[in-house]
Structure formats: structure tokens, C-alpha cells
């Protein structure tokens, strides 16, 4: 199960956080800080997995991350997830964002936080992978956007 999804920039500023397990606000911030601390000191040419922390759920806990330009995408998962599978899921997620925002950059994530959340909801639900097909995800998001628009015009 995916326990948390964190996106922060090279300076450790959170850009999107989503926890699938309850943590109090200060604990959430601590997790973000420590995760950033762990991930940021790793070179780009080392592997994308980190083990051995005990922040979430004891020893059965792994960080799988990818670094894109100014952003880190970090998935905190337990042992029931496949490492490479999650790695490609991050890729799918980012590619979907790219499709929806046309050349996604950090600013899109800042100012369209709500939208990013919607997209994420179509990919992961309650810590479980819901959909991995990019076209399918984009179609769902667009469908909802259309509904939204029709409602706005009704008003």
C-alpha cells in the first residue's frame, strides 16, 4: 500500500502532500522534512530506493523517488508494492501532469494545486493504484472538467 505521496522542490518546500494514513500536522511536516533531508543528499546516479527509516510504519517502509528538474516526487510505500512498478507509476503520473498542463513546471503545481489533486485521485485511490493508463486518466479528468464547465455556465 502507498502510505504517502510527497512532492517538494529542491529546497524542501512542499508542493503537494497526500497521506493515506493519518498523521497529525506536525508529524506530517516532520516526515516531509526528514524525507527531504534523506533524498536531497543523494546523487542523481544512485538508485531510486531508500530503506531503513522508521518514520512511517516501522521497518516495513521504503522510499521510492524520482527527481525531475526542480521537483522531487517521493512515494512512501510498504513491502507489498513492487519497487520498479512504483517507479514507473511516478513516471506515468508526471507524464499525465505534463499532458494536462502542457509542459508542466513547478509553477503549475503551485497555482493549480487543486487540479493536481484531482489528477492524483484518478491514479491512486486510498493508497491503492487505481489506473495506470495515461489516456484513461486524462479522459477521466477531462470528463470531469467538462461537467464542471457546464455547471459554471448553468450558473
Amino acid at each position, binding site marked *: 500500500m502507498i502510505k504517502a505521496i510527497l512532492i517538494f*522542490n*529542491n*529546497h524542501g*518546500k*512542499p*508542493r*503537494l*502532500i497526500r*497521506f493515506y494514513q*493519518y498523521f*497529525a*500536522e506536525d508529524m*506530517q511536516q516532520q516526515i516531509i522534512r526528514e524525507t527531504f533531508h534523506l533524498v536531497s543528499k*543523494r*546523487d542523481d546516479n*544512485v*538508485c*531510486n*530506493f*531508500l*530503506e*531503513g*527509516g*522508521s518514520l512511517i510504519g516501522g*521497518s516495513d517502509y521504503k522510499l521510492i523517488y524520482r527527481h525531475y528538474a526542480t521537483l522531487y516526487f517521493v512515494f512512501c510505500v510498504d513491502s*507489498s508494492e*513492487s*519497487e*520498479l*512498478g512504483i*517507479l*514507473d*507509476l511516478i513516471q*506515468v503520473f508526471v507524464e499525465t501532469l505534463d499532458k494536462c498542463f502542457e509542459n508542466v513546471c*513547478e*509553477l503549475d503545481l*503551485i*497555482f*493549480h*494545486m*487543486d*487540479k493536481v*489533486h*484531482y489528477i492524483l485521485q484518478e491514479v491512486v*485511490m*486510498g493508497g*491503492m*493504484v*487505481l*489506473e*495506470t*493508463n495515461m*489516456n*484513461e486518466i486524462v479522459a*477521466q479528468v477531462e470528463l*470531469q472538467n467538462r*461537467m*464542471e464547465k457546464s*455547471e*459554471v455556465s448553468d450558473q
Partner: protein
Amino acid sequence: MSDVVEKTLTALPALFDSQTGAAKITNRLRQLIKSITELTSKHEEENLIKQELSAMKEQVSSPNTTMKQMREIMVRAMYCEMLGYDASFTYIHAIKLAQQGGVLEKREEENLIKQELSAMKEQVSSPNTTMKQMREIMVRAMYCEMLGYDASFTYIHAIKLAQQGGVLEKRVGTFTPHFHSSPYITSITHAQEIIRRKAVLALYKFYLIAPNQVQHIHAKFRKALCDKDPGVMTSSLHIYLQLIRESPDSYKDLTGSFVTILKQVVGGKLPLDFNYHSVPAPWLQIQLLRILSLLGKEDQSTSELMYEVLDESLRRAEMNHNITYAILYECVKAVYTIHPKAELLEKAARCIGNFVLSPKINLKYLGLKALTYVVQHDAKLALQHQMTIIECLDHSDFTIKRETLELLFRITNAQNVTVIVEKMLDFLRSCNDEHTIIHLVGKVAELAEKFAPDNSWFIQTMNDVFSIGGDLLQQDVPNNFLRLLAEGSESKEEDDQLRLYAVDSYLTVLKGHTSHLPQCFLQVMSWVLGEYAHLQESVDQREVIRLLTQLLDQRSVSSETRVWILSALTKISEGQTDLILDLAESLSSSQDTVLRQQAQELRHLSQESQLHEWALPRGAPWDGIEVDSSLSFLDGFVSEALAAGAAPYKPPHQRQEELCEDRALNLEPYGFSLPVSLSSCSITDRQSPTLLSVSSGLSGNSTELSQKAGCLILEGVKRVWGKDGYLPQKKRSTPPVDEPSAAVQPPGQQEAAERIEPRPDPLTQNQDKQQLASSLFVGLGVGSAMSLLGKSEAPPPRFRKKPHPHESSSSSSSGTSERSSDSSSRSSRNTTNSFLYGSLLEKEPATSISAFDHTPKSTTANGLAQNKDTKEDRRANTSQILGGDMVIVRPSTIQDKHPPSVSSDLTALLPADLKDLPHSDVISLTSDPSLSLSSCRLFRDEALLLVIFISNCTETVIKDVAVQLTCEELKTVSLRGNVVDCLEARSTSVCHYALLMDDPHTNVSFTGTVSYQTQPGHTNTLPFSGTLSTADFIRPLVVTTEEYGKLWLSLSHDVKQNLKLLTDAGDPLRTTLNSLKDALQLHVVDIIGSEGIVACRLLSGAPCLLHCRVNGTALAMWLRSPHPALPDCILYHCQRALAHH
């Protein structure tokens, strides 16, 4: 602040204008983000957000706020939450909004509602939440439910609420669960596949939170699995993976379906939509492979079904993309998990090669992981990749290094241990991650103990372990080490040599710079020096004393360590009165009371050499020390304290439970604990009210420790249980390996080393690496590969401990500390203890001597005799205690109170379907002139049936008889016949309750009332009560010896205790076990020699395994269970059964 953001901010306005979607971004949010980026300090940010939040609070509660504004507020609230500020006040508004609004609002609110749910989750589990709040939460949860969010976690609380609450709570409580699952169950048949898919996932969450509540929808899961849409089927696999993980046996029938699905997927039968980088549905494949490996584990016939499809998967996955490797990795794991097939294993091994040799670092990592998994089955595989492994050892990536060491740990044997341990220590020295250090240091210690080639290496390695691991070390590492030194092996000479090495090396360490040494290392050193410094004759004892005293003066030394040092000094102080008196003088004004007390004792002992010799005899054998874990010598003190009004002792877990219960309001004015316990104590006199509770206290500690260590502590217990279950007792010749065996390699291993040579990686023709390789992988050849599997013979551990008679009375890890504190008679750990004891010593010396008695260490003749007497006395006492204590302190059970007086022909009235069940005697509960009640217990496998017979004793008809039974600790699953409209004269009606016990309690009392009408309009009530014991809920667990072995290893909570052995018959063990079996419905699995294994379970729930060993005149009982309280309960009943015998 981020520079990137700052720079781009200047271009912001243009950006917004150009984007169509930007219209949705509210001005306020834009302002907020902008002003946050302009701020320079965290403090300013905090102020700003606080302002923002209070403004929002005002807005949301104002009635003039429009829907659109509301939405903006929600987005801003989400932003604040992300920055770590509490915006929970918006949650409830979010729900409201979502309820009235359209799609747009709903989506906006969805995020916040999820947070609301998690906040509620916390609230409901908090014990401080009042009933009223609870009710409100339930209503809120229902709101969320209505909107289609998953609030299933509230179910269980709703049910609880319904049980305890008033009418209103009951209505809300029972409503929620039903309300809850229905929308999902209906939407599972929804036309749109995406909705079906989400509904399946929601049901899965449901299942995770309240598995019992969704029993009825298992059929729906199957329906989802057979859904025509592959997406829905994929979602349902989440559920099946979980279900199969819990009980693989109940889903074996689905193997065929899973195999077919996988075959279709691999064969490309799915629509192209499901392809990812032209691989058909990779995530689906991964899930399926995991499910198959779970199903095929240790099951040949099931495994055979899947060989073909696994082969196909291995063959198909050949494209060079990450995701194919993900599938391959799962495939390899599956092949090695299921019942082995040579052909597949070979292919899988080749795949591992692809991983390990890959230039991609992620694949290399997975390769190492796969190897680590696989070497447990086939150690030779590591040989093929030795050069890569060595390269990985020097890799710059921390994660890779760590994984490599993990792999090396698995292939360690007596020949390569020095090299591997050296590598590990090198890594540790450069590592600064706390978790890794703790994890790895424990492994080094384990390896050192198991395979050490010689004494000096062992001591040196342990020195490194202590100085690197420092105070992060698990407590059992130093404990085990000291135990090893103290108990020694069979040969005395060798032990002394080891001890001598230790003394020498510690003296060298202490002569150097000591301020940087960790406390734990100092403690170990001072203990060893105290015990064994006298062995080294070439060193002046005064020098040792000087070194130790020096330590005492150092500021960095903690007060606990000082206690250890002082104990050591006490032991070696003999004959050095001048030095000691100075020391004692200087410490007698210390702030620390324990130190002061020790200094006093030190002075006394150094002045009276006879007393010193008697209390601390030098070089006395360790076996003689008997730890009185029941602390019965304190009984007098305890009963005094109780008489003076102290609260009786409770074991930790019980305290915890009561703490939780106590949080609710206590409406009873006062408990009546005092007078009751007082009288019981005065009657029982020297008996120990703490006897039972102390044992559970100890066990509590040991569980904690063993959990911390994460591994089994099996030292000193004969290794009867191997990886594959019970190891039949082989006659092993087990002298410790004297010669460092690395020097002389057996021919087989030499061959292996040679075989390695012609296989070097052409790129790395490095002589050093070659050498390293041959030293690392030595002993992994054909001959010894098997030994790694633990199948033929385990490598004999270097340091074999003597079987220890008191093993089971105290947990192994706490054993040493107990013993060491005992031996010095100065408890270094338990301050209170030494305190109690100390005051005894000072007040009346006579008692102090008798208090010494429990450690029959004295060598003087009269001391010994005296010891024996008291010991026997005590034993006699103990058995009395067992008998007496039960009757007085514990609430008596039904049989005790009411001897079977009712004629058993009542059982003839039992319903036909219950007649054949084993049942207890019928006993009378209560009676009044018109009704008499009696009860009988029927033992069904999954429940206890409490049958209540209601007999009409009058000649008239009694009407409207209704039985009401309450018992807080038990769960009533069904009841029948509790309301009778009309009970004829002289007739009997039967009503029965099926009761479940979820949490074991030693005894459970139930109360109830019967209401009836003899004349219309005139209702009588007759109260009754009774007690049930855990014994009623224990059922035999029928397992084979092998299953037992596997189960044993998987259980975490254990308790050890010595019990009385019934010695009146020829075979004491068999007699005792049989009598236990009769009393408690246990299942005796096997009896081998002086050991017996017994299994039982709590109804159809948690198992409890008992391991019994005859130990002199006692039965050492070791219990394990997944449930923390169950072993204590069973132990209690065992003690009781034996005492009654």
C-alpha cells in the same frame, strides 16, 4: 524562499492572463501565494497564515458567503494545510458544501473531506472522546458516507457505541454500518466501469478496517474478480492479495482462475489500452505473480498448476524496459517461493544474472535483493556473482552497500567470517544512520558469536561492536556477551582463557583515552574486570582498582555506569582496605542515593573480610545461582505495605488495559479493594500475592526485549527447532572449534575456492579483488552449501553455552542483568529493589542473611544447610500459595461456589443438536420460591454455550419469563429461548447463549436477571451471577510437530515460568501434561525425552503454544502466542490445575 519561484513570480501576471484555466484561480489565493513568497522569515509566514486562517474562519461562518467564495476558501485552506497549519475548522464546511453543491464543489471538497475523515479517525480512537462527541462523529461520518466517501472505520466504533450507549447512541450506532456498505454494494453493479472499480477499492478499505463486518460481501468480491472489465478485475486483486495473505488455504480453489487470467494477460489477450510500453498490463501481472507465489508456497500440487505460466512469463519478459524487469523480479521470487522445479530454477537464476550484471543501478539493487532472497535456498548462486558483489561493496551508493552487506550476512560461515565482519565494521565506521547502525551491529555480534575463529578475534570484534554501536545497541547484545563469558562452555580452561583475553584487552583500553567510550562498553568492561580481574595474576589488583576509580571521577560517566563500576570495585576490593575506604568516604556524600548506599555497603564489606567472602565468593560456579523470580523473599515487605494501604501489584498489560477503561467516567463512588486485599494478606501471611503478577511482569519485559531485537532469543535453550520445524535430536558431536578452521581448509572447500578462479570478470582482473573474493566466498562450495540451508548440519557455533537450568524461569536477556545484580547483591538496575533490600540490611542483620538465602552461593557448610532448609520451606510454601491464593484472592468459579447439586437429568432437556457436545456438570445458579435457575456449559469448537435452565417450582403457570444476561468481557453471538411467554407448572425451559471471548481474562463474571410474572401486572425479578474461566474457552489445537515448529517461530509474545511437576507417577512429564490436558483441553503434540510440546487456542482464534521441559523437580514452561495476554491466562490456569491435583 525558493529563488526559482521568486524569479518567475515577476512574470506571473502575464502567465495568469494567458491561461484560460487561470480564471479559476482566485485572487485571494494568488495574493496569498505571492505574499508568502515575498516573506523572508518563517516567523512572518506564520503570522500571515494565522491572519489568513482567522479571516477564513470569519468568512465561512458568515451567512452571506456565496458558494463560489466558499470554494475559494476551501482551496486556500488546503494550501495552508500543506504548509503545515491546522485548518481543520473548514472540514465540516467542506462536507456541508459538498452536500449542497454541484460537481464542481464536490470535487473541491473531496480533498478536505478526506482530511476530515482522517481527523475523525483519530478522534474516535482517542479515549478522551466523550459519548456525545462520539455521537456527533457518527453523524458526521454518515454525512460523508452519504456523499460516497469511505468512513467505514467508524463502523467498529458505532458498534461499540451501540453496545454501551443509551437509546440515542444505539440508534445512531446500529444505523451506520448498515447504511454504510449498501451504497458500495449497489454501485458494484453500476453500469460504468470506473464506478465499479472505485466501489471495489472502497469495499477493500472496508475489509481492512472491519473485516467481520463485510463477511456477507465476499461473494461480491468474486463477482468483481469475474467482471467483464479487466480494470475492475485488477482492482479486485488488491482484495484477494490481502485475503490470500491471511489464509492461503481457503483460496486454493482459485489458483486455476488466476493462472488462466495470467495466461491471457501474458498472451496479449487484453485490449491494447492496457499496454504500457507495449507490455500487456504489467501492474496486473505483478499482482497476479504475487498471488500465485502465496498460493503455491509449500504446496506441490498447486505449484504444478502454475509452472507453465511462470515459464511463459519468464520467456516473454525479454524487452529492455523497467517494467519488464519489475515483472521478471516478481517471477523470480515466485519461482523460488513455490515448490521448486529444477528447470524453472535454472531459468530464474539466469534472470538474476541479468539483474546483477545490469549497468542500471536500480536493477542492480533489485538483483542484490533477489540474491539475498535466493541464497537461502541455494548458496551457490552467490558464487557466480562474486565479483559483482565485491564491486557493490565499494559502491558509492549507501543503499546498495547496505543491501550487499545483508547478502554477505546470509552467506557467512566459519571460514569467511573474519573478512565479512571486517567489511561490516568498515561500513559501520563510515555510516551515520542510526537505524542502519543498530540493525547491522546486532548482526555483527550474532556472526561473531556464531563463527568466531579464536578468542582474541572474538573479544576484539566485540570491542568494536561496543564502541561503534555504543548506546544505540540493543540491550541484549551486551547481555548475551556477558552471559557467554559468565556461563562458559564445557571446558573450564578455555573459558578462563577467554576471560583472560577479555581482562587483558579491557585493561589496555582503560589505560588509553576513555572519555569517548560509550556507557554500555564501560559497563561491560567494569563487570568483566570485577568478576575476572583476579585471573590475571601478572597485573596488580591495585592497578585495576586505580583504573576503575579513575573512571568514577570522569564527568561523562553516567550514574548507571557508576553503579556498575562500584559493583566491580566491591568485588575486587578484598584486601585493599586503604584504597577502598578513601573511595567509600568520598562517595558517601554523593547526591545519588544508590551510589551512596553502595558506598556504605562497600565500606562494610571491606572491613569484614569474612562477610565479603561469604557474600561475594570469588570464582564461584554460575550454575549454583538460583534466581527467585517470584521475589518471594519480599513477601513480608509486600504484605506489610498492603496492610499499610498500598495498592496491590498489577502486571503492566493489565495496567494498560485498566488505564484505557478508566478514561471513561467512573460513576461508582469508591472501590472496595483495600479491605479485601488486607484480609487476604493477613490470612496468607508469608504467601506471595505477587507471585503470579511478577511472573507476568517479567514476561512483559522479555517480550519487549525480544521484539526490540527482532529476532529470537534462543540461547541456552536446546536448539530443537530448526527452520523447517522440529529437528529430530541428532547426536551431534559438539566440541567448540578449537583451531581456527580458516587455516586448514577441508578439501571440498579448497576445491570450491579453486573453482572460483577460472571465472573472473574480464574487466576486473584485479588481484586484490580476486583475493577478497576467494576469502569472502570460501566455504560456499558444493560440500558446505548444504550446511547453509541448515538441512544437513548447522555449523557448530564457536561458543556453545551450557544448557542452563533456570533458563525458562527468567527471560534470557534479562537473565544476565538479574544475575549480575544478584551476584553483587547490589542491584545495578532495579533501584527500588536494592533500596528495599538495603533498608532490610541495615535494620536487622538477621533478616538480611535470610534474604541472602535465595542465592545459595555461600560455600560455608552451615550456610548451605540453612539454604537448603529455607529453600525447601519455600517450595512447600509456594505450593500452598498456589492453592491458597487462588481461593482467597481470585473470584471463585462456579464449581467452587456451588457444588454440583442439581441432578444431571436436566441435561436431557438440551436441544437435540446440542446433546452430543461435551458439557460440564449442571450447577445451580440461584433460586427463589417460584423459579430455580441452573446452568451448564457446553463446549463448542468456535464458542462456549452457556445453557440456563429455568425451572418452574410452583404449581402455577409463570408468564413472560425473560432472561437478560450481561457480561462486558464476552461477546454474545447468538442466543435462543431467552423469552418464554408461558412456563407451565413444574416444567423447565432451556435458554442458551453462545459466548465468544476476544481478549483473554483469567476469569470472567457474568450477571443477569430473570423477570417473570406470577400474576398479571406483577413482575418479579431474580438476579443471578456466575463466573466463567478462560479454561472454558480453550480448545485443543491439533497440529503436527512440524506445523508447531513453524508456528512457534512466528509468534511474538512469550512468557516463561517454572511450574510444579507432578512427581507421584512413573513418568512425571507425561503425568503432568495429561493432567493439564484433562483440566484445560490442551492438545499434547509430542513428547520427546524430557520435553513436551502442547498446543491450544482461544476458541477458533489466537493459538497458544506451550513448550515444557523437565528441569529437576520443576516443569519449565515456555508459552507463546500472538496475543499478549493469552499466555498469562493459560499459565494461571495451568498453575491452578497442577495445584489442585
